[in-house]
């Protein structure tokens, strides 16, 4: 192959020698000739004259190089040459190159993947015109930090405010579509007039709702989503004005929204933002406008141009004060709270994503210091080569550029591979994202991500290449050349730099390990916490009764009663019950201001509790334990004594004991004897979410005594065997009762519960991934430095052994060196983790950000890994043969 190489080099030197280069040579030759001529005429011999002229001119190679620099094209030429050279040097050391490229690619890929999630979720504007002017409005009081609004208060705010161009409310009101095909449950919202104007999006066909539609009797109009219009109504262009059947009643289509309209998100019976809403119906104002105790409207508004948030807030506050004077019974005590829609949408996920980006950034820093360290080590062994190049006229900046070309090449390769990793990573992240993660639908792999990848690839290349490049170019020419063949020992300065890099790496890795450890601890805590129910072998489903066919409780009661019996008759069902909602699906209806016999609420507060209904078997089907008294039974009917079951938190909070059975609660003012509801049982607590700090007071009415119509019911079926097999029979039971009913959300209770763990699981998974990567990189870093230093000191170890040192002494000596570096890193890393703990604390559950167990474990693990990484090179050091060492001199 040699002749081939020679041929190739010749060919290159021929083609590379451009016309410009030749001209420069001719120019310089002419100069030398002229100068020599002068000296010759002064009496020198031709040879002497030539020498004198050359001395006078200076180093031809240097002049050539400088002239090349003056021509700007030299940068490109040089870069091409440097890159080519870099490829060759790396190719000579494929293992070394692959190691750096791979570690960089992994960390760049991680950063790019997280970045594209952040870009989609945090950076992209919400998909509405002038989205930054849209705000959500909540109520807050002493007892409730964030609460929905009462519709009548909302109507008054809409009429009186000065700050908003448009203010509207929405509330979840699912509908059932019947007609052609199987009845279908539609996700639906009742919205007030102006709702779509707040979003800034007009219907593609037809019109938006107006205040006329809000009047009782006018509400049977509907706006369809583009998707429903296309899938169920064959995109009929004349749909406006047609009648469709919702909840067994005729509704006139008023309009169709444009495609890809995204739901802005809501709290109460939430549809996640970006999810599909199928239809919107007008919110109907009926009932007594002076009673304003019930809060279920979610307010959203668009600020007028030029109105600041602060002014809007002040405007609302003033208005609420006025409303409180007008309705002292119900509106008093509430204050308004405006939140930009963007903050409301992404607020909860921002911290998690930024923490993850931070972690990915730390991994990248570690990979950088690793690469820098390996390059430094190599630069040292290449000192002689560099010295020769310098002696041949390479300027310092030229050498730095040459070295940088190499690191840039590495980082670009890493970036390219990293982009591929990121591409897969984004897919994986999307699959892993917790259920209901805001704006998950707007995460894409796109040009922005690739630009970001390129940018960090170039950035890291500069970062890890600059130190070794400067170091190498600083090398003392004469000394390097004089040291000749003997591998030159690293100068103290260089050793210091490399040690600092390793300490930094270990410190960063410790920070990540601590973060991951804390997340692991809190995840274990979460999993270990008693959920308050037994989710195994439980199937759940949702049924909702249309208002038209089930207008009153008197019709619902027999339906629920009979359905309960049918479900329990299904073979393979251990016990089946129903209730208004399921555990861990967010917070439910809350009722405030009831009376408790013989007790007074604390000053400035009121008795309040989550309220639900449940039938006789609901608690057993879910596996909720009974602490005192009894569950409901078949005798608790509309004709019998009014009873309720409460949870332990409510019993303790309002009765001061678990044993609250026999206590009485009234929901009307000045209760007569028959108005009192008796507590017959106390059950275990279930929190709103597994990560909620504590359970809230909660109470249940029996289904057969529900004080008003609950038309949505969750079925809970505990199976003897595999619950999934029962879904067909559950559907059949419902359809046996009423073939027009939809059975929705058929899910295993474990899935429901699992979904609420998905956010901490997501965080833990990524944190563990990054920490593992960081730990591995840091171990490689320690290994690299120690094994390099052992290689450099083979001679010294040989001498030591020759002078009588035991292998153990050498081993200990080397191990000490590595462990000392690691220890410094660990101290710095744990210290920084302690300082940064506050960032994490919001993501933790049941563990302090300064958890001593985690910190100790990380320290021990890090020491162990460090010792392990030193052990191999240390073993090699003990094997130093005194004879070889001496001979190599």
């Amino acid at each position: 192959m040699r002749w081939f190489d020679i041929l190739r080099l010749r060919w290159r030197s021929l083609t590379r020698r451009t016309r410009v280069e030749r001209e420069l040579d001719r120019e310089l030759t002419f100069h030398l000739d002229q100068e020599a001529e002068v000296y010759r005429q002064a009496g020198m011999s031709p040879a002497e004259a030539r020498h004198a002229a050359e001395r006078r001119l200076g180093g031809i190679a240097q002049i050539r190089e400088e002239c090349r620099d003056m021509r700007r094209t030299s940068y490109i030429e040089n870069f091409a040459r440097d890159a080519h050279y870099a490829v060759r040097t790396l190719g000579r050391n494929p293992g070394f190159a692959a190691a750096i490229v791979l570690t960089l690619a992994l960390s760049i890929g991680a950063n790019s993947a997280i970045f594209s999630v952040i870009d989609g979720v945090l950076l992209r504007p919400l998909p509405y015109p002038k989205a930054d002017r849209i705000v959500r409005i909540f109520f807050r009081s002493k007892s409730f930090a964030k609460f929905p609004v009462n519709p009548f208060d909302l109507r008054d705010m809409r009429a009186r405010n000065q700050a908003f161009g448009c203010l509207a409310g929405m509330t979840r009101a699912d509908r059932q579509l019947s007609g052609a095909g199987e009845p279908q449950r539609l996700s639906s919202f009742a919205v007030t007039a102006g709702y779509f104007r707040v979003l800034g999006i007009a219907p593609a066909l037809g019109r938006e709702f107006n205040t006329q539609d809000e009047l009782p009797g006018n509400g049977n109009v509907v706006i369809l989503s583009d998707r429903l219009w296309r899938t169920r109504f064959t995109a009929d262009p004349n749909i406006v004005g047609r009648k469709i059947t919702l909840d067994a009643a005729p509704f006139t289509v008023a309009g169709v929204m444009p495609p890809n309209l995204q739901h802005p998100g809501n709290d109460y019976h939430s549809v996640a933002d970006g999810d599909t809403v199928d239809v919107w119906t007008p919110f109907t104002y009926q009932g007594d406008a002076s009673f304003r105790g019930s809060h279920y409207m979610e307010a959203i508004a668009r600020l007028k141009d030029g109105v600041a948030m602060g002014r809007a807030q002040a405007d609302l506050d003033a208005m609420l004060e006025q409303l409180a004077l007008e309705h002292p019974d119900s509106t008093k005590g509430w204050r308004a709270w405006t939140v930009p829609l963007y903050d409301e949408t992404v607020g909860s996920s921002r911290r998690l994503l930024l923490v993850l980006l931070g972690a990915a950034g730390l991994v990248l820093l570690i990979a950088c210091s690793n690469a820098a360290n390996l390059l430094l080590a190599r630069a040292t062994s290449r000192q002689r080569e560099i010295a020769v190049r310098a002696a041949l006229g390479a300027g310092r900046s030229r050498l730095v550029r040459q070295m940088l070309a190499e690191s840039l090449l590495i980082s670009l390769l890493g970036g390219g591979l990293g982009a591929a990793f990121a591409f897969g990573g984004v897919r994986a992240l999307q699959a892993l994202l917790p259920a209901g993660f805001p704006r998950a639908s707007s995460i894409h792999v796109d040009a922005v991500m690739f630009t970001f990848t390129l940018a960090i690839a170039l950035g890291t290349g500069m970062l890890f290449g600059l130190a070794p490049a400067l170091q190498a170019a600083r090398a003392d020419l004469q000394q390097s050349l004089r040291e000749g063949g003997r591998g030159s020992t690293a100068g103290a300065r260089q050793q210091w730099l490399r040690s600092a890099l390793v300490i930094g790496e270990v410190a960063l890795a410790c920070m990540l390990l601590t973060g991951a450890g804390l997340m692991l601890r809190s995840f274990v805590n979460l999993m270990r916490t008693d959920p308050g129910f037994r989710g195994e072998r439980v199937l759940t489903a949702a049924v909702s009764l249309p208002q038209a066919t089930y207008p009153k409780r008197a019709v619902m009661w027999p339906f629920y009663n009979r359905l309960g019996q049918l479900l329990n008759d299904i073979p393979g069902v251990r016990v089946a019950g129903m209730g208004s909602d399921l555990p861990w699906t967010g917070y439910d209806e809350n009722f405030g201001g009831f009376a408790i016999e013989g007790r007074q609420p604390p000053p400035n507060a009121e008795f309040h509790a989550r309220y639900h209904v449940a039938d006789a078997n609901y608690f057993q089907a879910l596996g909720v334990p009974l602490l005192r008294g009894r569950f409901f039974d078949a005798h608790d009917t509309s004709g019998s004594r009014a009873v309720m079951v409460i949870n332990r938190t409510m019993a303790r909070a309002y009765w001061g004991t678990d044993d609250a059975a026999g206590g009485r609660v009234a929901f009307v003012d000045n209760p007569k004897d028959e108005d009192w509801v008796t507590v017959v049982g106390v059950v275990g607590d279930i929190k709103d979410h597994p990560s909620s700090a504590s359970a809230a007071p909660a109470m249940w009415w029996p289904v057969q005594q529900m004080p008003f119509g609950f038309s949505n019911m969750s079925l809970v079926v505990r199976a003897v065997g595999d619950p999934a097999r029962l879904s067909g029979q559950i559907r059949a039971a419902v359809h046996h009762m009423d073939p027009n009913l939809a059975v929705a959300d058929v899910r295993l209770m474990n899935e429901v519960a699992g979904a609420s763990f998905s956010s901490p699981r997501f965080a833990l998974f990524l944190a563990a991934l990054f920490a593992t990567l960081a730990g591995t990189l840091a171990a490689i870093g320690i290994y690299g430095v120690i094994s390099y230093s052992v290689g450099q000191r083979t001679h010294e170890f040989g001498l030591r052994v020759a002078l009588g040192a035991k292998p153990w002494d050498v081993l200990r000596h080397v191990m000490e060196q590595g462990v000392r570096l690691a220890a410094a890193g660990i101290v710095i890393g744990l210290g920084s983790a302690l300082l940064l703990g506050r960032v994490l604390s919001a993501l933790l559950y049941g563990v302090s950000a300064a958890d001593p167990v985690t910190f100790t474990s990380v320290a021990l693990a890090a020491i162990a890994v460090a010792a392990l990484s030193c052990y191999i090179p240390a073993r090699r050091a003990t094997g130093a043969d005194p004879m070889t060492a001496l001979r190599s001199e």
Partner: protein
Amino acid sequence: MSKPSDLIQGTLDLLILRTVSLEPMHGWAVARRIQQVSADALQVTQGALYPALHRLEQQGWLKAEWRATETGREAKFYALTRAGRTQLEKELAQWERLSNAVGMVIRMA
């Protein structure tokens, strides 16, 4: 041999532009001329001359062409461009101001 610091930084450009402004010249002649006119007081670093010529050419202040000298050999002749003339005037004015100022300080101090 003289070091670049013998010439005040930046004056080499001025000297080259001024020298070439009389007539197109090749590099060696430029060096000779500067030396002769300054009565050998200014030793132009020949090694620094060519990069400077190339830079000025790159900046568009000089243009170069190959043509025969009196002896018949081909040489690269540099001539001032229009932009170069403007630049020369600017640098000359600057130099005047500076040297006047320095002279004044030296006399008055």
